[in-house]
């Protein structure tokens, strides 16, 4: 990767990210039913937040994917905001509030790549990005989902559930996809 990377956003990039966002939306639409089934099972036990955190990685997957596809500064944030806008438009459960959470998740994921100075797009920075996404979104949910009111053991368990989910989807799966793309030589060599 040369140092004078082009950081401007072109029409093609915006269309690509929106298409990828729609794609993830279509691919993971079925997961909503899984989530609902999981919630039904966990609700009487009072453990429903675990269901939420277990699949959260799927909703935050657009950010690291966008970062790897475009390798620009801000691509994770903008990618996740575009994805949440698509989700809101396609009739996601939460409408406009997905924009807020999309922004939070995007910033969280972006930090992982900022810490590696936008130079690496491998397992290290993807894992780091998973960690920062978890920390940022978890801090937000301490207020928004009221996690702060739980007992300490539950907060810690939720944190690690979320980290596992975000790492599995946002790092392991994204890394596998990006490796396939690199082998196919379809990514633009800028």
């Amino acid at each position: 990767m040369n140092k004078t990377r082009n950081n401007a956003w072109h029409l093609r990039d915006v269309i690509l990210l929106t298409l990828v966002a729609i794609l993830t939306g279509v691919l993971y639409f079925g997961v909503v039913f899984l989530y609902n089934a999981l919630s039904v099972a966990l609700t009487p036990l009072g453990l429903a937040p675990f269901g939420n955190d277990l699949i959260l990685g799927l909703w935050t997957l657009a950010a690291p994917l966008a970062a790897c596809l475009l390798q620009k500064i801000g691509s994770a944030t903008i990618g996740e905001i575009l994805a949440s806008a698509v989700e809101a438009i396609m009739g996601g459960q939460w409408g406009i509030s997905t924009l807020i959470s999309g922004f939070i998740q995007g910033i969280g994921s972006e930090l992982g790549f900022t810490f590696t100075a936008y130079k690496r797009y491998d397992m290290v920075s993807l894992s780091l990005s998973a960690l920062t996404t978890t920390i940022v979104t978890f801090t937000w949910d301490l207020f928004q989902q009221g996690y702060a009111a739980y007992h300490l053991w539950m907060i810690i368990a939720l944190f690690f559930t979320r980290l596992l989910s975000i790492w599995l989807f946002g790092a392991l799966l994204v890394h596998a996809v990006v490796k396939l793309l690199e082998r196919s030589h379809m990514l633009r060599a800028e």
Partner: protein
Amino acid sequence: MNPTVLLAVVLVCGIELSFARVITANLLVIIVGVVVLVYKHAGWRTYLRLLLVPLLPALGVWFSMAYFAVDHQLHYAWVLATRIYAYSFLGAIFTFSTTVSRTLASLEQNAHLPTTFVYGMLAALNFVPKIRSEVTTIKASAQMRGITLHFWSPQLMFKGILAALKWSESLAEAMTSHGFAENQPRTHYLVIQIPKWNYFAAILTLAIFQIFIFSAWP
């Protein structure tokens, strides 16, 4: 109301709701939402959906709070459960007041969002049915070779992205060849303005909302 102004009001209310612990503020949003829906003549399916979809997450969070919160704070359990409903109605207020293309047009003209983003999104959004059928095709062709692709298979996503790469290239070229220039000034057939009363309405709404948020009400 102008979509950009409405979006700003809704987003501010949404962020404030995330931190507030006031049931009455949540209820206020829900009531306003119902009033807007009635005014817009929403069908009974909309009410049913808005009632049922948030039910599961709301119950989930209520039970968790009741069981596992320090001191078993029932008040906070109700705050979180009604907050989930408030979020859904906040979304409904917005979606029933405007359309996607009008919102994007307003964001372009009023909020001066770069045209590349506005028209790029507009173009890509037309591809929703095409992407649906592409995913079905990818899955079916893998099945024919005796391979089942699950949602966690990298292959499924990889093949989808290949299609997206191809389409984004073609679509961008098509738009450029039809005279679209990135971030150049454009003229508009539909000019969207922000009437003065919109500002007053926005400030008034937010002011009333603050009374609820910062009051000592439950």
